[in-house]
């Protein structure tokens, strides 16, 4: 079972900032997106149990290679890094097109996507990609297992979960419930140094540079502001009985009870 894991290099959570053009500044240190590490962990477990290997795929600036290197140390066999100056400022539409073109060049049984990214919080790339590639789409997975010629997942529902099945190749969007990502071992880190990170340009994918990047963006950020400041907290340091009574008064004053 060969699995391609989509892995985005994102700014460390809490350090994100915008460029002057109001785009996410990705020139800062990038790490693997948290939700993508859960799917990577599951992909590694599945290939360890059933054979095959894991290929990482990312679209991003040169420094996204740091996130790939760590993921290789966790156990992925190889990585594909689509990197091209023309991609700077690409929006979701362009990113989906680039990912789709790259996936067409790769062989896989499953593609794994994370539930969303910490910098964009869109959560739509997996579904869009599956449709563009004509793949069955199984989302919000808390469990993934192979079947004969297909895949079975548990999809989180409001009341529990649904069990879904589809033939492979398929695209699975996974959640945190797939499992805590492993730490790279020292051996893994050593091995990762010699694992290949293949760099693909837009030309390699046959994509016209004018269809990506800032110039081709289908949406535009107009303004960014800090949210209104909270007034600052009031502190209660009283006995539990007095504190409870004061909280009730506070809630009542705000018409919350």
């Amino acid at each position, binding site marked *: 079972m060969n699995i391609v894991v989509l892995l985005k290099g994102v700014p460390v959570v809490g350090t994100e900032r915008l460029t002057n053009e109001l785009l996410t500044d990705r020139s800062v240190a990038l790490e693997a997106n948290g939700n993508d590490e859960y799917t990577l962990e599951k992909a590694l477990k599945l290939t360890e149990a059933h054979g095959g290997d894991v290929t990482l795929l990312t679209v991003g600036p040169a420094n996204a290679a740091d996130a790939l290197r760590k993921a290789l140390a966790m156990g992925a066999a190889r990585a594909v890094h689509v990197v091209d100056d023309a991609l700077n400022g690409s929006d979701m539409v362009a990113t989906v097109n680039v990912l789709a073109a790259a996936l067409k060049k790769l062989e896989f049984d499953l593609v794994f996507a994370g539930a969303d990214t910490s910098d964009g919080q869109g959560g739509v790339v997996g579904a869009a990609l599956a449709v563009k590639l004509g793949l069955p789409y199984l989302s919000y997975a808390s469990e993934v297992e192979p079947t004969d010629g297909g895949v079975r997942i548990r999809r989180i529902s409001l009341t529990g979960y649904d069990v879904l099945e589809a033939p492979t190749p398929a695209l699975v969007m996974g959640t945190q419930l797939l499992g805590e990502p492993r730490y790279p071992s020292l051996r893994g880190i050593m091995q990762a140094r010699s694992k290949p990170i293949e760099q693909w340009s837009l030309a390699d994918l046959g994509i016209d540079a004018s269809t990506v990047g800032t110039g081709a963006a289908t949406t535009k950020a107009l303004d960014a502001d800090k949210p209104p400041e909270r007034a600052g907290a009031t502190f*209660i*340091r009283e006995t*539990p009985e007095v504190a409870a009574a004061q909280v009730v008064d506070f809630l009542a004053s705000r018409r919350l009870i």
Partner: protein
Amino acid sequence: MAAIWAVGEVADGAPTRLTLELATLARQLAEAGGGEARTLLIGTGAATAAEEAARYGPPVLAVEADTSASPAPQVVAPRLAALVEQHSPDFLLIGASNDGKDICGMLHGLTGLPVLYNGAGVGWADGGPRVEMSTFGGKLVTQSAFASDRGLILVRPASVSAEKAPAAGSVESVEVSVESELPAVRVVDRVAEVAASAPIEEARIIVGGGRGVGTPDGFRLIEELAAALGGAVGATRAVVDAGWIGYGQQIGQTGKIVKPALYVACGISGAIQHKVGVQTAGTIVAINRDAEAPIAEFADLVVVGDLFEIVPRLTAAIRARKSGGG
């Protein structure tokens, strides 16, 4: 004149609350922009749900479609795409629920329409929607627009409050033929989990528990306070990882982003990964042993002390007040 659609969701033959919020928003945007609003309902029970949705103003287009054998987005997206092809609406408001996000992504794949996601509010300016996004987990508020004059907007729950219209909209049931369905995904089983808690996405009040709650038994205190307040139970990732409550209740970066009127954080330090999920709550009350914990930086009221002492007394005081009719 812009046509604005609210794409609703049907659950057990009724529109979800998010659907009613979107219908309200579509009506408000149409009023602001001199356009026409419509609510779309697709799925099992759409025709039944349409009556309630219509009370929020826009006329409802209901499409009965069997969503029992496939995940709902799989059925909804191609039908919606066919209707978009037929009617050419300018803007579609889609709720940022799990199903809504899937529908939005699929619809983009089917129609190529651009997407503004993560909407925390939508206004009308310069002839089009202006989408307010809570960016980087609320660190910034950004305003965005489409570069072209059509698009899909993902709107988070509680971005607008659902308000009934003075006059209900009409209801029209239509049939949609779909040229090609999406690649098949079968639902082979639907499993209800024993202690599924009230969903946090739409809750007006949420009581959250963190590592400071200590044990699964300690977490019962959180549930009792939530019950007394008539709210839902939320949790940090540590608590979910410990298995004290389901992932559906997790607030934060890899969980859900919520916007309740009141959030009571018990034994929660307020790490950035949790903060991003809840910092836009109307009022935040923290109960924490450590007055220096990060949560004090974004709470309105911080009760410094032992939650095991304070929470049961708070629960009792709220019950007493409510039963006293106060």
